[in-house]
Structure formats: structure tokens, C-alpha cells
């Protein structure tokens, strides 16, 4: 097929956190006039609404920013709140939070890599037709999803909007029986996980490369950093979480209600591929072995491989979570650490005026929460920087390089490739990306 000389693409779909996202691409006489990724949301104004609320309500409220990453938001929120209050979480609390974050990664990556990307591997538009044609695979995915959801329910009361994990510690700790139950469910997952990991190897992804800046947590210890660490960059920069604004540099673009970000280059990438590129050495040996098998090694500049980096992280988090559970079983829990806080009516947590930051890796990339509080622990100002927003600018830069490379493809293939590129970022819109409505006007 001859090169497409004129092209007018408009892709409209509903996003998860950001409401609507649109792709607009205009090509005239083989020259790209416009290739943009717009995010047009109903502003929910969380940062504004937090003002005047108790710092002890921040976790509950900000969890509601995103139902998919609610545990991730909760973890960033409690870190920021404790930083503002000057509270140091106990070792046990940290351990349980790391376990929760492993579950969050498992849940989100399973949903994205298997339920949403498997249709690509199997050549169908969404998972719905797979119910009929690949019933066994769909059931495996749903069972796996349910299993992760079940362990999460046991740990934090429920996966969507966790109940027990709050600023200051835990309102309810899992009993020894519940630790055993989590181990049992986790060990039982392999029946579903193994065949799906095999399936993921067959996924064919476009060969596209663009050098960009990768940003993720980095640390000095040997653990793959997800909950704790500094903010690091593939450009060799490293700042503490207190200086997170240096790494995000938000700017507003009138086209989009998401704020754009950049650091040392024109755009930056956060997410599984950034973590993989920066912290490969610290992955679990089995995760590394899988990466080797599929030919994924750092530094990888192909954004499509973000999905495969997620699969690698599934393996890592699975083993990391099991190790924590077995450690908890061996050493037991200190139940005297269970707390009742509310909005601190009893004054059980010492309160001070503060400015706290929580930076946590969540499935889609690094997430920052920042709260300024007064002496009574009431929030005066809040700032939340979400991974998807940090990636929007990078997606646009990818488009600018990718579209000219695929202009000789058929229209349907161009559409599919643009869809797949957006989907690779797992930008909280992946579900809908399978239902993109693309219209070409020539």
C-alpha cells in the first residue's frame, strides 16, 4: 500500500482517572501537522477538597482518586501524612505495607498484562469474545485476579479502598490463621500463573525505540525499591522525595486538563519499564530469568515493552510477597500495635504543623503525595502527582516519532498501533483503549 499522504485521525475514549483522552493526528501531503494526546477530564479537584480536612482522613479520601490504584494512593498518602506529622512507622508496619504494595502490583499487572493485553496476543478486539473462544484462559485470568483480590481483602479489609491501613499503622492486623490463608492462596496461584506467563511470551509487540528519561525510586539497599527510596533518573540525577517537584516540573497545557511534566529531557517515562531499567539488578532471580528468556534487558527504549516489564514484575512481586508472608508466619505479629485513630479524637498520635511528602512506586509509575498541615493536623494545602500525568507528555513525544514510521501501513493498522502504544503505558485507560473509536477523514 502506498504511503498515506493525508490523514486525519481522531481517537476518542474515556480514560480512568483523567476522564476523557483523545488522540488527534493530522497528516497533510505526507507531513505531520499535528499529533497530540489530549486529556480532557471532569476536574475532580481532590487537592482543593482536601483543604480543611483532618490529615487522618487523607488516606480515606485520596484512595478515591483511583479505584484501581487505591492501595497505591493510600500508601503514598500515609507516607506523606506521617512525614508531615513526624511519625516513624514500625518495622512491622513497613513490612505489611510492602506486602500490600506487592499485592497491588500483582492485581494491577494481572489485569493489564493478561486481561487487557492478552486479546492482542490472541488477535481479538477485547476480552469479551475470548469468553467464548478462550474460555479456559479467561477463567484462569479471572481466578488469578480473584485470588489476588482475596489476599488483599484479608490484609486490608478490601482491595478497592483499603480499610485497615492508615496513617500511624493498622486498625486491624491479620491473625496467624489469616497469614496462613494468604500463604495458601498465594501458593495456589501457580496453577493459573504458570500458563499465563507462558502465554505472555507469545505476545508480539512493535519494534519501536525512542530514547527518553526513565524516572523511578532508587535506593542503596539490595531490595527492588517500591515503597521507600529517593527519586532517581536514567540521566544520573537523584533527589530526595522532599524535592519531588524538581523531578516533575508540572506545567499546564490548555489542550489538556492533565498537568504535563518533564525533568532533564523533553519528557519522562515512569512505570514498570522505568523501574526495570533503573533497578534491574535488584529483581528476584526468577524475574530476571524470565526477562532473559524474553530478551528484555536494561536499558530498553521500547515503550511497548512496558507490558513485558510488568510481567517480569508479576514474578518479582509474587516471590517477594511470599517471602514476607513466610517471615510473618515465622516471627509472628505484635498485635499490641493495632490502633484506633478516627480523626485522632483521643489524641493518640502526636500532631504538629508539617509539610510531608510520600513518594511510592505504584503499578503505573512513581506517585507523589504532598500535604501541608497546621498545628491541629488540618490540611492547608495538598498536591498529588499521578503517574499517568507524568507519562502524557512522553506519549506525545513517542507519537511524534512513531507516526512517521508507520505512515506506510494501512489505516486500520495505524489505528491499532497508536492504540497499542497508548495501551502499553497502561495509563488507567487500558480497558477503554480496546474500545477506541477511531475515525479517519481524508
Amino acid at each position: 500500500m502506498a504511503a498515506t499522504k493525508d490523514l486525519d485521525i481522531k481517537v476518542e475514549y474515556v480514560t480512568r482517572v483523567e476522564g476523557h483522552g483523545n488522540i488527534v493526528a493530522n497528516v497533510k501531503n505526507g507531513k505531520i501537522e499535528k499529533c497530540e494526546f489530549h486529556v480532557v477530564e471532569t476536574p475532580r479537584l481532590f487537592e482543593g477538597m482536601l483543604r480543611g480536612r483532618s490529615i487522618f482522613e487523607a488516606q480515606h479520601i485520596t484512595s478515591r482518586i483511583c479505584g484501581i490504584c487505591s492501595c497505591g494512593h493510600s500508601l503514598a498518602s500515609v507516607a506523606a501524612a506521617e512525614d508531615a506529622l513526624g511519625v516513624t512507622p514500625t518495622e512491622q508496619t513497613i513490612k505489611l505495607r510492602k506486602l500490600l504494595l506487592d499485592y497491588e502490583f500483582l492485581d494491577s499487572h494481572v489485569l493489564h498484562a493478561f486481561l487487557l493485553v492478552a486479546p492482542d496476543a490472541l488477535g481479538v478486539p477485547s476480552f469479551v469474545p475470548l469468553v467464548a473462544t478462550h474460555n479456559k484462559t479467561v477463567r484462569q485470568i479471572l481466578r488469578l485476579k480473584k485470588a489476588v483480590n482475596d489476599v488483599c481483602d484479608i490484609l486490608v479489609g478490601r482491595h478497592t479502598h483499603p480499610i485497615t491501613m492508615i496513617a500511624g499503622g493498622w486498625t486491624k492486623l491479620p491473625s496467624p490463621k489469616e497469614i496462613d490463608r494468604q500463604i495458601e492462596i498465594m501458593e495456589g496461584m501457580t496453577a493459573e500463573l504458570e500458563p499465563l506467563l507462558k502465554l505472555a511470551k507469545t505476545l508480539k509487540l512493535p519494534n519501536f525505540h525512542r530514547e527518553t528519561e526513565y524516572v523511578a525510586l532508587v535506593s542503596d539497599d539490595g531490595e527492588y525499591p517500591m515503597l521507600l527510596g529517593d527519586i532517581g533518573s536514567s540521566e544520573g540525577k537523584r533527589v530526595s522525595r522532599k524535592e519531588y517537584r524538581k523531578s516533575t516540573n508540572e506545567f499546564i497545557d490548555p489542550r489538556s486538563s492533565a498537568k504535563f511534566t518533564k525533568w532533564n529531557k523533553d519528557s519522562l517515562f515512569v512505570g514498570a519499564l522505568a523501574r526495570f531499567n533503573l533497578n534491574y539488578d535488584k529483581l528476584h532471580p526468577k524475574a530476571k530469568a524470565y526477562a532473559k528468556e524474553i530478551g528484555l534487558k536494561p536499558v530498553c527504549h521500547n515503550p511497548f515493552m512496558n507490558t513485558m516489564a510488568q510481567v517480569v514484575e508479576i514474578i518479582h512481586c509474587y516471590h517477594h510477597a511470599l517471602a514476607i508472608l513466610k517471615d510473618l508466619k515465622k516471627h509472628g505479629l505484635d498485635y499490641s500495635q493495632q490502633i484506633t485513630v478516627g480523626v485522632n479524637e483521643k489524641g493518640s498520635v502526636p500532631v504538629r504543623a508539617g509539610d510531608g511528602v510520600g513518594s511510592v512506586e505504584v503499578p503505573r509509575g512513581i506517585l507523589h503525595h504532598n500535604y501541608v498541615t497546621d498545628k491541629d493536623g488540618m490540611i492547608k494545602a495538598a498536591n498529588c502527582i499521578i503517574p499517568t500525568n507524568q507519562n502524557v507528555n512522553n506519549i506525545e513525544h513517542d507519537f511524534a516519532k512513531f507516526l512517521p514510521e508507520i505512515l506506510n501501513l494501512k489505516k486500520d493498522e495505524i489505528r491499532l498501533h497508536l492504540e497499542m502504544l497508548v495501551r502499553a503505558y497502561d495509563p488507567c485507560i487500558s480497558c477503554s483503549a480496546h474500545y477506541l473509536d477511531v475515525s479517519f477523514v481524508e
Partner: protein
Amino acid sequence: MKTAKKDTKAPAKAPKAAAKPKVAFFDFASCEGCQLQMTNLGELLLDILGAVDVVEFREAISEKWDKDYDVVFIEGSIGDHHAEERLKKIRARAKVLIAYGACACTGGVNGMKNGFELDEIRQSVYGKDYKLFDSTPTRAIDQVVKVDYYINGCPVYPPEIIEVVKHALRGLPYTVPDNPVCSECKLNENVCMYERGVACLGPWTKAGCNSWCVNNGNICYGCRGEVKNPAKNAAKDVISKYNLKPELITKKFEMYNKCKEGAK
């Protein structure tokens, strides 16, 4: 109230010859966690998918389905002009409309926006460019269009999803429990949060969640909305017995119920 578990054998299954009900799903301002609760049903989701015909999952394909819907799920609240128009268009084509989750039923946490002067809160987030982003006070779905069924909660409680879906597909009325969360909490033998020294919204909040949060050592945040006829005297007793400021309760209640303030 304890309802459908895994033994649900889809009693409402339509005969093979009959067309399955056309079901659509739309999200407005929300975290979409309630939608996620559907996938958290695991294989039970396949039973639901077997009983219905999902014609839309997102706004994206709305133009493609140009006939009426039998049942629509609306997630999220209404907070800009475009959303209002879109919701009205959906309602016009829907035989049955289900408000799905707290944001849809009561405005949810989005309602906290209404506690601020609108331009001020917009400016606090977007700075001087705030006018680029349309924003109206938050409204629950029934403050814009007629609602036929409510599935309350933030997030929705899975057994109740199944229960309401079964009722809606059969055209039967479903009544949201109008007793307070305390009634379930007592049966679960939780130590009262007031006895533990913190204020809980259980006495004023609609039951139906099996006192989910209190079972897990946290307070009730009022996400299911206020009971129609709260026991005002009992509430006064609670407030005075535990020596609380009424403002403390009011402030907590505003987290989920600011939109419906004063409305019954």
C-alpha cells in the same frame, strides 16, 4: 440481608430464544473502583455476562449502539456541563437506570467540592488558567435525572450488586435497607467505636454493607448515605454521652453527603 454467594445459579436466565437484555455501563466523575468491583467478582462475572448482552462498556462506542438500552449502570457524579448533557441523552434511551456506587447515589467524595466557593476551589488546583476546565457543583445522578435502582457504597458491596442486578433484570423493585449500620454492626459483635473513643457515622448511615469498615477496625464514614429517619434523640444521646462536638459529626458526614445536604 446476607445474600447471594457463589451458589447463585442465575435464576433469571432468559430462555434461549428470547433476546438477552441490552446492558450498558457509563462512567462519570469517579475513581471507577465500583466498576472494578465487577471484575473482583471473579468467575461470577461470567454468570452475569452470560445473562446479559453488554452493548457498551464505555462512552467510546456509544455512537455505535443507536437503539435503546434495557439497563444502564451509571457510575460517578455530575460535575460539568458536558456530563449533564451526556447523562440526559443516556437517560432518554434507557428503560432502567441504576445509580451505581456512592458518587452516583449521593455525590460521594466529589460532593466535598460543594463546601467551597466554586471559582476559589478551581483556582486552587489549576491556578490562573482554571477557566479552561469547565466545572459545576457536584450533583448525584438523581439530582439530574430519574433513577430506578440504587447500589450504594464506596465501593459497592459485591453481594448487593448481585442482588440489585437480579431484581433489575426481573423488573422487581429493590428496597435499599433504611436501618442504620449499627444494626448490622451489633450482629457482627464489634466493640462500638464510640466505646473505643472515636466518632463513627454508623448511627446515621444506611445499612447494607454488613458494617464493612467497622469489622476492620475503622469507623463508618457514611458512604451509603443517611437513613431517611435518623434516630435524632438517640444521636443526641450518643453525642452527649461521649461528650462530642456536633460539628465533629457534621464535618465527618460532609465527606460523602455534602451534595444531598438537607435533601431527603
